[in-house]
Structures are given as structure tokens and as C-alpha cells.
């Protein structure tokens, strides 16, 4: 070295294309391998479960595997972008902000960052998906918040996150412990939730509120806020690492929005009618209140046709059933009338009539029996949702651009204009932001067409574990069905069952005959194959147990691939100089999420009110928090916010909704909330054990160390 070091060197080494490839290949491969390692478990698990346990073929296998490949590339790029671009940017601002600006600037910046992050990654789509089965008359307030007043919901969450980031920064600057924040927030949340439980309208909001807390902190926000906090704490804190300082904002950003949504619910709750019977909801005297839940009368009418019974449709019209049928008739003919309610495409109306319409309504739409018969043959087959790769890629890119660019531009502006500092390692940061954008677009496309699709297939069939379910996508219609072919079988106890033989795919199978499925007029028999219960031991409990195990492993596997958790774990390892290993945190969190999702599934299967599930857990957490060290409290509670990200949420919701739709219309809220409480518990318990061991080890040094 002494010889080479003597000569001044060129500033840059020229690297040829070949050499550059030699450098890049192992770099990229190492990172792809990391993502493969994190995602293979969940993929293999879902595939094996689908094929070996549920014994069903994987539909669209080609698209799914393509999607998975895209998702892995997306994850690799996105995580690379986080570490190269977004996190250094956040940290650079954090390091300079407290030294260059006053408290009011920091607070204003924090609020704008929090609100902006929420608007950039609104999780409202996820919440809508979870609440898709919510009926307007069963939970009017919830319905209102998810549909007409969804904007308010986003605002409330945004303000909540903004206040959380502000509170977090104040905490850093005045070096306050996170514990009192947790005690006060969780305490008041518990009280509010318990109180809401006794209000019929607010009861349905609690699930939404707790889930809001879980989903708002997305894969872009979390790493940014973490890096920012680390930077600020390095300047303002008193100890070498500040006892896990830099963490905690994510915790607050998951708790404040819950509060904000509960308060919003209470504000709106007084003006919204209470849950009621469907017939009362649509009755003329109640109509003004009901219409208040919708944008317009047309929107309500459309909702009624899609979701309510025929009697309710009639109630919407002053002229009763006759006017309703007349309206349908004119809609079939008049495009303008149709467009307000069913959209201008005639097939939507016709599909509705075939799928949901009553006999009279069908005739009203199609006019003649022959047209109806034709339409039934046309529409009654299972219609696969069409896949449009172009529009999916576009919407993925749009979401990615919205999630990344406004926030980073805001941060860059703050750095350059407010702090008047240069961007460190400009080329790396810009490359990182670009990678994060491309990665996120890839990730969302890959998840949608790969992992979520697979999750949907498995999730929808899961109830087959403990009960018998219909396989809708294998539904087929037998045209010109002859009831004469139906034969009767006798069971050992003498009961009679009717069945017929169906020739299908080169084989003959017996199909139980259900007279209700035979339409005499059209001569068709709609046949839907059944599956399950696959595990019916112990009075059906065996199947449910398998379901819990499935939920656990799925939650565990999906969490391993969560990018925000990866960012948190790397940050934790860095801040603790390796005493808290990345793998240890990820494992602890993944096990927690698995347990949480099992709990959430239990909530859905047995229809346990969310409050019963969440409150005891949080109270237990408060106790453990009081016993834990500040460092682990910060890290543990932050784990709650990072678990529910782009990989876990679609899978969990698919499963939750799949089970929910089979066991009776419970909404899908609450699983995510349960999935974020358990990891806190697991990380804190790990912390208690580790600290106890350390104290013991140090204690030996103390007691045994007599004067030497």
C-alpha cells in the first residue's frame, strides 16, 4: 500500500462494459436471491396447499408464475431503491433539520409529511375491499364512511398521521419516553372502543378504525419516517444510540389514525340512522334518511338493485312493484335511463337480471321467454374476470408514481430550499428513487397478477376444510336437461337421495340432484360441484384447526417478504450495531403476524366481536410494555406498523373475505388489526428474554467480582 499510496490517483477509474457486468451481476444476483429466499415459502406453501390439501388445480398457472417473477423483480428493485435513495434522503434531512431550523419549522414539516404520506398511499382501496360485503342497512355509518364519505375517512387518517409525526418529532427533541404516549393513546383507544361496542352504529366502525391504523403506514412512508427519525435522533439525543431512539413514529402513526377515525365516526354518527331491517331501510317514510347515505337517488336505486331483495326494489318506487317493473322495461330499451343505474352497457343489466333478478324482473328486462332462455344460456356460465395487462401496468405505475414522487419531491425541496443544503451522493439517491418507482410498479402488478391471484384461489376455497362449499368457477349448465335421468339411491339407514349421472371430460360422475336448480321453463340444470368438508373430525373442529395452522403459516410466510419490515430490520441492526440481528427481528415479527392472522380468522369463523379480541391483547401489551426496556418498546411497537404491507394485505384479505363469504356475511375487518397487535407482543417478549439474559450475565460480573 505504501508504494501505491504515494502516487496521487485519478479521480475515476474507467470501467469497461464487460467489467461493469462482472461487478453488477453478483450484486444483482445476491439481491434477487435474497428476495427469492423471502418469498419462496409463501408461494410454495400456497401452491402445495391448493394442490395437495384442497386438491384443486391452479387456474391461470402461467399468468401466476409470470406475476410472481415480476413481483420478485419488483421487490428487489424496490428494496434496493429504499436503501439507496429514500432512506438516505430521509436521514440527510433528519440530520440537518434540527440544526438548521426552529421547532415550528420541524413541526410544520412533520405535519405536511404525515398528511402527504397518507394521500400518497391511501389504503382506502384495501379498506373498501374489506368492507365490500357491508350492507347499507346493517351498518349505515360504516357504509357511509366507505363510500359517500370516503374522502372524510382519508382526511381523518391523514390528520391522524400528520399529528403522529409531529408528536413523534416532539418526542425526539424533548427526549421523551414512548411509554406514556402508548399508555395514554392505547388507554383512550381501549375506552373508546369499549364504549363504541355498546352503540349499534359505532360498533361496526371499530373494526374499520383499528384496520386504518394498521394499513396506513405503507412501504414508502415507513422507511422514510424511520430514516428521518434516526437522523434527527443522532443530532438531538443524549446517548450513543438514545435507547432505540429514532423509532416510535411508526407506532404513533398507527395509533393516532385509529383515534381520528373513531372521532370521525362519533361526529358523523349522530346524523346517521341506526342499523335496521332491510324493509324498513327502504320504506318510504325512512327514505330521506337512507338516501342521505348515497350520492343520489339513482345511486341508491343502483345499490338496491345490486344488493337488496325484490320487495325492497319495489319499495323504492312510489307506485310499488308495477312501477318498478315498468322502470326496468324502459331501462332495457332506453340507454339514457339505464346509464344512471346500470351503466350504458346493456349486458350489465342483462347479467344482473339473469344473476339476481326475480322471474318478473327477468321478463321485464328481456321481454320474451325466448330472449330470456337465450340470455340464460349466454350468461349462466362462470365468467372469468378478464385480465388486461395494459391497464394493470398503467394503474400500477400510476399508484407507484403517486406513492413516491410527491413525497420525494417535497423532501428534496425542503432539503434544497428550506435547509439550503446539498443532496449527499446525488447520483445514488436519484437512482434509488428511480429504482423504488420501477420496483413498486412491478411489485403491484406482480402481486395483483401473481400472489394475490393465487391467494384468492386458495382463500376462497379454504372453508372447504371444515364445511362443504360450492366451486363456483366450475359451475356448468346442462342444457336440455331431462329429469327422467334422475335416479334414486338408498343409504344404509334407508334415506333416499336423488342423483343423476353426468358425463364430463371423458368420465361419468354422479351428481346429487337438487330440484331447485332445475329450471323447467328453460330446461336447464345448473350444476355446481361441491368440495369438503376435508377435515371433519372432532365435530368439525379439526377443519378449523387446519385453517388456523394455514393462516399462521401464510401470515408468517407473507411477512418474511414485506419490504417495510426489511427496512425496519436493517435499520434496527444498524442502530444496535448488530446486537439485534435483522433475522431475529424478522422472525419474531413473522411469528407474531402468523399468530395474529390465526386470531383474526378465529374472529371471522366464530364471529367474535373485534373488541373482545383486541382489548385483552392491548391491555396485556400495556403490562409488558411497562416491564420492557425503552429500546425494545420502540422497536416492538414499530413492528406493528410495518407488518401490514403490499404482500400481506392482499393475501390476508383474500383469505378473510373468502372465509367470511362462506360462513355468513361478516365484513373482513379486524384481521389486519389482529395481525399488527401480535408482532408487538412477540418482539417485546423476545426483548424481555434477551434483557433478562444480559442482566444475568452482567450481574455475574457484579456479584462474583470480589476485589482481585
Amino acid at each position, binding site marked *: *500500500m*505504501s*508504494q*501505491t*499510496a*504515494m*502516487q*496521487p*490517483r*485519478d*479521480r*475515476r*477509474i474507467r*470501467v469497461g462494459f464487460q467489467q*461493469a457486468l462482472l*461487478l*453488477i451481476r*453478483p*450484486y444483482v444476483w445476491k439481491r434477487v436471491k435474497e428476495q427469492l429466499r423471502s418469498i419462496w415459502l409463501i408461494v410454495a406453501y400456497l401452491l402445495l396447499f391448493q394442490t395437495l390439501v384442497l386438491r384443486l388445480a391452479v387456474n391461470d398457472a402461467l399468468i401466476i408464475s409470470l406475476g410472481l417473477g415480476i413481483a420478485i423483480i419488483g421487490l428487489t428493485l424496490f428494496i434496493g431503491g429504499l436503501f*439507496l435513495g429514500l432512506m438516505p434522503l430521509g436521514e*440527510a434531512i433528519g*440530520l*440537518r433539520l*434540527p*440544526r438548521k431550523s*426552529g421547532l415550528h419549522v420541524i413541526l410544520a414539516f412533520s405535519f405536511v409529511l404525515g398528511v402527504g404520506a397518507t394521500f400518497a398511499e391511501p389504503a382506502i382501496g384495501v379498506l373498501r375491499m374489506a368492507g365490500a360485503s357491508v350492507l347499507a342497512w346493517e351498518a349505515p355509518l360504516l357504509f357511509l364512511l366507505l363510500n359517500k364519505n370516503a374522502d372524510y375517512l382519508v382526511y381523518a387518517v391523514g390528520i391522524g398521521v400528520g399529528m403522529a409525526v409531529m408528536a413523534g418529532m416532539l418526542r425526539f*427533541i424533548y427526549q421523551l419516553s414512548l411509554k406514556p404516549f402508548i399508555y395514554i393513546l392505547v388507554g383512550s383507544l381501549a375506552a373508546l372502543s369499549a364504549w363504541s361496542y355498546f352503540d349499534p352504529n359505532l360498533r361496526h366502525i371499530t373494526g374499520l378504525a383499528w384496520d386504518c391504523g394498521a394499513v396506513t403506514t405503507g412501504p414508502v412512508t415507513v422507511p422514510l419516517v424511520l430514516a428521518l427519525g434516526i*437522523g434527527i435522533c*443522532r*443530532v*438531538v*439525543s*443524549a*446517548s*450513543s*444510540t438514545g435507547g432505540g431512539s429514532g423509532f416510535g413514529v411508526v407506532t404513533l402513526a398507527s395509533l393516532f389514525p385509529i383515534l381520528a377515525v373513531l372521532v370521525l365516526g362519533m361526529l358523523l354518527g349522530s346524523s346517521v340512522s341506526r342499523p335496521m331491517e332491510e324493509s324498513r331501510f327502504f320504506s318510504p317514510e325512512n327514505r330521506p334518511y337512507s338516501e342521505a347515505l348515497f350520492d343520489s337517488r339513482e345511486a341508491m336505486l343502483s345499490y338496491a338493485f345490486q344488493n337488496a331483495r325484490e320487495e325492497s326494489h319495489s319499495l323504492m318506487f312510489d307506485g310499488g312493484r308495477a312501477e318498478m317493473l315498468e322502470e326496468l322495461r324502459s331501462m332495457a330499451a332506453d340507454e339514457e335511463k339505464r346509464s344512471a343505474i346500470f351503466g350504458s352497457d346493456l349486458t350489465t343489466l342483462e347479467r344482473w337480471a339473469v344473476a339476481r333478478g326475480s322471474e318478473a324482473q327477468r321478463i321485464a328486462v328481456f321481454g320474451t321467454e325466448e330472449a330470456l332462455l337465450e340470455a340464460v344460456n349466454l350468461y349462466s356460465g362462470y365468467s372469468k374476470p378478464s385480465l388486461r395487462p395494459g391497464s394493470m401496468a398503467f394503474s400500477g405505475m400510476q399508484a407507484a408514481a403517486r406513492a413516491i414522487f410527491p413525497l420525494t419531491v417535497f423532501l428534496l425541496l425542503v432539503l434544497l430550499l428550506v435547509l439550503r*443544503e446539498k443532496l*449527499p*451522493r446525488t*447520483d*445514488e439517491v436519484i*437512482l434509488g428513487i428511480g429504482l423504488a418507482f420501477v420496483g413498486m410498479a412491478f411489485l403491484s402488478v406482480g402481486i395483483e397478477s401473481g400472489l394475490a391471484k393465487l391467494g384468492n384461489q386458495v382463500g376462497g376455497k379454504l372453508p372447504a376444510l371444515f364445511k362443504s362449499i360450492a366451486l363456483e368457477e366450475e359451475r356448468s349448465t346442462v342444457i336440455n336437461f331431462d329429469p327422467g335421468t334422475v335416479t334414486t339411491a338408498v343409504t344404509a339407514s334407508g334415506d333416499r337421495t336423488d342423483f343423476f349421472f353426468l358425463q364430463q371430460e371423458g368420465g361419468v360422475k354422479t351428481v346429487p340432484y337438487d330440484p331447485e336448480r332445475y329450471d323447467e321453463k328453460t330446461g336447464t340444470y345448473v350444476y355446481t360441484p361441491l368440495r369438503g368438508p376435508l377435515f371433519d373430525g372432532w365435530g368439525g373442529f379439526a377443519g378449523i384447526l387446519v385453517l388456523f395452522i394455514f393462516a399462521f403459516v401464510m401470515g408468517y410466510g407473507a411477512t418474511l417478504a414485506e419490504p417495510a419490515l426489511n427496512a425496519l430490520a436493517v435499520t434496527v441492526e*444498524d*442502530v*444496535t*450495531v*448488530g*446486537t439485534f440481528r435483522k433475522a431475529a427481528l424478522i422472525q419474531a415479527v413473522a411469528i407474531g403476524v402468523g399468530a395474529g392472522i390465526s386470531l383474526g380468522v378465529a374472529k371471522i369463523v366464530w364471529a367474535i366481536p373485534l373488541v373482545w379480541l383486541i382489548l385483552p391483547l392491548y391491555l396485556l401489551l400495556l403490562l409488558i410494555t411497562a416491564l420492557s426496556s425503552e429500546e425494545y418498546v420502540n422497536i416492538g411497537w414499530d413492528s406493528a406498523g410495518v407488518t401490514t404491507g403490499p404482500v400481506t394485505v392482499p393475501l390476508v384479505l383474500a383469505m378473510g373475505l373468502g372465509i367470511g363469504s362462506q360462513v355468513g356475511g361478516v365484513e373482513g375487518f379486524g384481521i389486519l388489526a389482529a395481525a399488527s397487535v401480535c408482532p408487538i407482543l412477540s418482539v417485546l417478549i423476545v426483548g424481555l428474554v434477551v434483557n433478562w439474559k*444480559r*442482566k444475568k*450475565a*452482567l450481574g*455475574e*460480573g*457484579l456479584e*462474583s*467480582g*470480589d*476485589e*482481585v
Partner: protein
Amino acid sequence: MITETPAAKVTGFVHRNITDSVRRVLQDAGIIEYYLVPSRSVMLKKRKAPFGLILEHRTVDDPADRVICFVPPEWGRSVANLIIRGGDLSKPGRGSVMVENVTISRAHDLCDPTNNTCMTEESFPDGPARLRDGLTGICCITQRGEGDNVARIALETGACVPLVTFGQGTGVRDKLGLLRITIPAEKEIAIFAATTYDADEIMDMIIEIAKLDQPGKGFIYLFPLEGGLINMKVFRGTHQHAASIEQIVAAIDEIKGDSRWRAIAHQPDQIGRPAKTYLRGLKSLSYICNEGRGEELVLAAMEAGAPGATVNHMHYAGRRGFGEQGISPAREMISMIVHPSQVDSITDAMTGKGALDDETHGLFFISPVPKAYTYI
């Protein structure tokens, strides 16, 4: 103002739980400014295996801190004894102390350590001096993830409980343009002390195990210590005797006055291997500044001929609080091992880039590196 003064750099390597009591004695003694470097201490733990099988010892980590302060040279040993008393370090398992003689070559006047202390004779209560002579410091910089392997050698030879810190390396990497991202910059720095008789042997063992004779694996160097106290409790776990082996060793050291009696015998299997070319007579040039300024200054140093640098974060605990335009509590240290003839040109180049200005609050210090090794 640019000054060149001799100083003592006193470093306490203490368990995180002890950090606070060490800080308290330093503050009580009038040492207002010191640095904290978050680290981890690595120990061995015996593994239990069924049927009495013998397993390799596992390494376990504890959070720890390096507490660094600069004091006038005549105070060095006293401050070290102060830290030993404050942290009760004479009991094995609690921490180590090192005293180095360094030269503060240039410093921003706020950072000049000679006016950082308001110590008097009364700052140091009487008590038995625990400091030992005949020690040499060993510092090994490796890729992230290799630190425990190096630490294991320090532990298994019974030398000392090492402290491992994270750092960022720069070198060839920064001359590659954007392609630099393909070469990981994360480094682990293991620092510990060994008796001077053993230091060469341990250095050779580390070179073997950490494969430092291969390119890009790392760097190791020895540095002389004025005095120190080493933590020899390399095992975590209870012992079954009235005194632990570490306590007995410490007692014999004290009786004998040094630790020559337990020098590791020269291992015969070293003979026959190709002789290593050590780098001798180098200087360690270190520079501490406000965090965020380091990147630019490292580039300046490399342009002036520095072969590479390691940067690590440190926390500055001083009299200036948050928001004031003083020294930032977030500081970083740039460490370079250079040829003595390069010291001036590098410090000049860095000073030219503002290393000593009011934004940066820089501090250069130099110490000898008698022996170093890396792949050339």
C-alpha cells in the same frame, strides 16, 4: 487557529448498562467533552449438547459503548483510572480501557481538547492504580458480517473481549462512479488490546482466519498503548470455583507486574509459510467532524493520495445543546492509515475543503502505526 499538541486519547470500552456511570465520573471530574461510539461487545458462550458432545462455542453480543475523550498527556493515566473506578472495570466482565498518545495536529478552536477539560488534582480521588503496561492495541477492519470471526480469535486466545463497531469504507469503490453501489461499503471494525508479547501472534491468526491476504477482505493494524486494562472475561456463564480463571489471571498479572508470564508460545506451524510483507512505520490519521461533512472531505483526502478511509458515526457529548450553531452532537470519524510523508498533504487538502471551518468543526489527530497488514 491551528495548533499541534500532544494529547492522550483515553477510550473506555464498556457495557451499555455501565455507560451512564462512566459518563457521570467523567463529568464530575470536569471532562466536559467526550465521544460515544455505539458498539457491541462479543463474548463466547458454551453450548450445551446432548450426550456430552462438545460443540464449538457460540458468540453472543451485548450492546456496548466506546467512550472516547482527549485530555492533556499527563492526565491520560489518571483519566483511565477514573474510568476504571467509575465503571468498576477491575472486575472481569465489565469493560476495558486504553490510553494512547496521539498528536492533535490541527483543530477548530472549539474542538481543541486542551481547553475542553477543567480538571484539577482534586478531580482524581486516591485509589489503587489498575492500569497495566505492556499492551498493544489491535484494530481490524473487515467486511460487514466478518466481525464476529475476528472477535472469536481475540476471545479464544484469551486476549481480551473485543468491541465491534459498524463503519463505512471508502477506497477503490469511490472511484467507480455510480457502479460503486455494487461494492458493499459496510464494514465492521473490531478493536481490542492484547499483551505486546502476543499481539504479533494474534495478528497473524486474524490474517489467516479472516483471509486478509486476499483482495478486498480487510485491513489490520497494531497501535501502541500507553497503558490499559483489558477485560478478560471471554466466557459468558457461571463458574464453579471461588474465583474465576479471569480473576486469577488478573491477580497474577498484578503480582508479576506484566503479563509476559502468559505469552503464547510461538507456534511452529507458522514456519514454512510464505513470509508476509507487513507494512511498517505508517501513521494513523483520524479526523472527527460534524456528520454530513465527511463525504466531501474523504474525497478530498483520497485525491490527495489517501488509499482509503473508514467512516463511523459517533455521538458527541459536550456543552453545546440542540439548535445552537455549535458542534453537532452527530459526528463522524474518518480513519485513514497513511504513509508519514502523506500526512501533511492530506491534512492540507482537507483543510482546503473546509475541514476546520465553522460548519464542520474538525479535529485531526495522528498516532503511530508500527505494523499493519492488508492485501497489496
